Structures are given as C-alpha cells and as structure tokens.
C-alpha cells in the first residue's frame, strides 16, 4: 500500500494562490474555509526586502495529533495515510482543531451552509457542493481522496502553474518524492511537534 505524501518546492512557488482557488472550487468549501492556503510574509530590511510564500495544507501526519484527540473516532486514517473525518460520527467538540499545530482543521458552524459567497443566496454550484458538508462538524483537506481513488492528482497539484507541488507515494523506492526529499534540502513544518508530516518542503 502506498503512503501518500507531497513535496512542495518553494523555489518554484510564486504565491499565486491558484492552489487555494483550485481547492476551493474542487471541494466547494463554505466561506472562510480554505483547505489549501498560502502564507505570505515580507522578510528582510529595506532595500533588501522580499516576499516569501509558504503553501500549506493538511500534512496528513503519520502520527496525527488530531486523530489521537478525537473522542469519537470520527477522525481516521486510511491505509494510504490520508487523514479523514467521518461527518456522521463527528460531534463538533473541536478537540482535533485545538490539537492540530498546523491549523488545518475547519469547523462548519451553524448557518455557514445557508450563506453562500454572494449575497444572493446559494448558487447552484454551492447547493451541490455544500450538500457534502454537515453543520456542526469538522472538515479538512482530504488530499482530494475522491480524485486520488480514481487515479487522479489532487486539485492543488494539477493546478499549480509552476509545478511546485509533487504528489505521490513516499514509500516508493527511488521515486520522485524520495529522490527530492533526499537530494534537496527538505524539511517539514514544525518538526518539534513530532507529528511526522507527509508534506515536505524544498528550500528556496
């Protein structure tokens, strides 16, 4: 069984937020819920200033703290490593959100599914997509499991115009992911959290 993961090459990322939009469109998340986002920051001092970009999404950690904190078992990990939430079992206690150091948990509050992105009520697109969410429960990035199960890549990966995101099997011997992680200066977010993230970053 594959262990799915992602490598994000910061040298290639231009901070266009195409991944954010692609994810939003693919998953049809309610207003304010972004599974994929790009954190931007200005660094340096004038005149040597630059803006750096850090695309983030759920790390689908091998040792996921959200999974351990969930009192109902609604959060579960598939054999391929994807961490998911079973809406029907979630009670909305938000313990997973408090335990995720990467802030990749999202609560669908009451009323969120009645309010679309525009003021004119829900669009037909939102009506279809919002049916996949339940109010009062948690939701999160699934690595686009519905696409992966059909042999497709996650929406953020295929959309990235600079091909900064590489998705695949972390366990594949001499595969592209292993090679990049081994040969480039790779790191994971907040390693001190000891969550063993499956999303790796390549240095700028």
């Amino acid at each position, binding site marked *: 069984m594959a262990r799915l993961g992602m490598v994000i090459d910061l040298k290639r990322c231009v901070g266009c937020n195409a991944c954010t939009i692609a994810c939003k469109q693919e998953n049809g998340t309610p207003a304010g819920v972004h599974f994929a986002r790009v954190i931007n920051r200005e660094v340096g001092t004038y005149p040597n200033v630059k803006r750096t970009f850090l695309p983030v999404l759920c790390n689908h950690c091998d040792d996921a703290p959200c999974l351990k904190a969930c009192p109902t078992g609604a959060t579960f990990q598939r054999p391929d490593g994807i961490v998911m939430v079973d809406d029907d079992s979630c009670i909305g206690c938000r313990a997973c959100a408090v335990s995720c150091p990467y802030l990749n948990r999202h609560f669908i509050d009451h009323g969120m599914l009645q309010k679309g992105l525009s003021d004119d009520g829900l669009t037909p697109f939102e009506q279809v997509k919002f049916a996949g969410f339940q109010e009062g429960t948690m939701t999160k990035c699934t690595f686009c499991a519905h696409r992966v199960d059909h042999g497709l890549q996650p929406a953020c990966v295929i959309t990235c115009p600079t091909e900064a995101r590489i998705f695949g099997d972390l366990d594949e011997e001499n595969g592209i992911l292993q090679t990049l992680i081994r040969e480039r200066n790779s790191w994971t977010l907040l390693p001190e959290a000891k969550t063993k993230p499956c999303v790796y*970053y390549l240095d700028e």
Partner: protein
Amino acid sequence: MSTQTVAIVSHRFGYGFYRQAWWNWLIGSAFFFGEIGAGFFLVSQLTGNFTGMVLGYLIVMVGKNTAHLKFLGRPMRFWRAALRPDRSWIARGIWATGLFGVSGLALLLKNSGQISLSDSTLALANTVASLSALFIMFYDGFVMNFSHAVPFWHSSLLPVLCLTYAALGGTTLTITLRELQGVHDAYGVVLLRTEFVLLVLNLLLLLIYVKRMSSSQVAAARETVRLLVKGPYAKVFIGLVILVGLVATLLLSLAQNQIQQNWLAVVIATCELTGDYAFLMVLLKSGLFSPQTAPAYARG
C-alpha cells in the same frame, strides 16, 4: 527569532502567532462548573454535609453538562464522545461524569431516605462517587495539556493546577455553606486550614507555571506569558486571577478566622470563584498557536 518581531495575526493566510479561538467561554464554563461542583461534592462528602453534596452534584450534572452540550456542534451525538476512552481524555471525562451521575445520585437518594442500599453497595457507591469526582476535578487539565499545538497549555503542571483550584473552590463553597447553615463542628478548623494551604499552594503553583512558561523554548508560550503579564489580559490575570482570586481571598480568609461572619464567607467565596473562573477563561483566551515556520522560512 524574537517574539517581538512576530505579531499575532487574525487570519490563517498571515504569518505570526494564531489565537486559539476554538474553545470559547462555554468550554471554560463547563470546566469551571466541573471543577468546583466536583470539589464541592467531594469536600461535602468528606465532611458529611448533605446539602453541599446535592449542590455539588447539581453544579456538575446541570452546569457542566449543559455548557458542554451547548458548545457541541452536534449535541445529540454527545454519547459518541465516550467511545474512545483508550486515547481521549474527553472520552475518559464522559465516563467519569457518567459514573459520578449514577453513584452520586444513589448516594443522594440513600441519604435522603428515598432508597435503601446494602452496606457493600453503599460502600461501592461512596468509592465510585469519590473517585469520579476526583477525576472530574483534574481531567480538564489533561484535556488541555494534551494539545502540543498550544504550547502554553502543554505543561504537566496544568492538571495539578486544575486539581488544586477545584479543591480550593470545593473547600471555600463548603465553608460558606456551613457558615450559612450555622454548622460549627470539628471540621470547621480543618476546612479553614485546608483553604489557607490551598490558597498558598495555588498562588505558588501559578507563579511557577508562569515562570516556567516565560523561559519556555517555544516562542508561543513566551508570547502568551507576555499577553498575561503585560498585554491585553494583564488586567484579568493579575487583577482578577491573582489579586482578587488568591491574594484578597487569602487575606479575607485570615480575617474570617478571627471574626467568623456569614457575609464575609460569602465575599470570600465570591472572590475565589471569580478568580477561578477568570483563570480558566484567560487560559483559553490567551492560548496561541506557533507560527507556521521552518528553518528556511523563519530565517527572515
């Protein structure tokens, strides 16, 4: 990276510390009711005060449980939270509350003469009620300290602090109730001394907690200390939690030792409970997540 250069950001697209906004005043209230209710029940049980046991039981079963249910996104599914006691402190807490509900009710019905219990059943109910009340007094500390994501909460001292706060709240409420009931027996002196010891202990533990966090290697923990000591929560933390909740309570309880007045007992209880509630609220509100950072990104 110094904490001065990293701001607290209001949205997840920015770089900086992120406020803990998931657990709000309802969770704080649930923890508060659980701690003081279970403490009140246990101390009343130990001192044989039936009214205190009833009040403590109601505070837990009505106050704590209502706040929890009101907080849940899907309250009708609350029972599912008991499914994973092997890995979740919330699940363990649900079990403890359930056991407390059954054994406590049995004790209260027995003491009010509504039912009769055999000696062995009564002993079992007493033991289960005491142990489950004790568990409710401190388990919320573990619920919070389980989260590595909020470094200020991730301390082994937190469950101890919750336990001592619960014991203090329970002792203070029992003393107040006894004053109002006009009960004067041998337990009176013991309770007053216990309250004094717990007040001093709480103050010391709180100062040690903040001191330890102020020298934490994690910037988010140090930033929380700054919020508590110099930042927007300083008035609540220093004013209500330390000065009103502990220092004023300590001084007033020393005066109470001398003059033994009903109204003073009520004032002491009000001060102590205000400090206790403020402590839990400020603990939740000041929690921060670390910036999303890694070597290359943090270099600045």
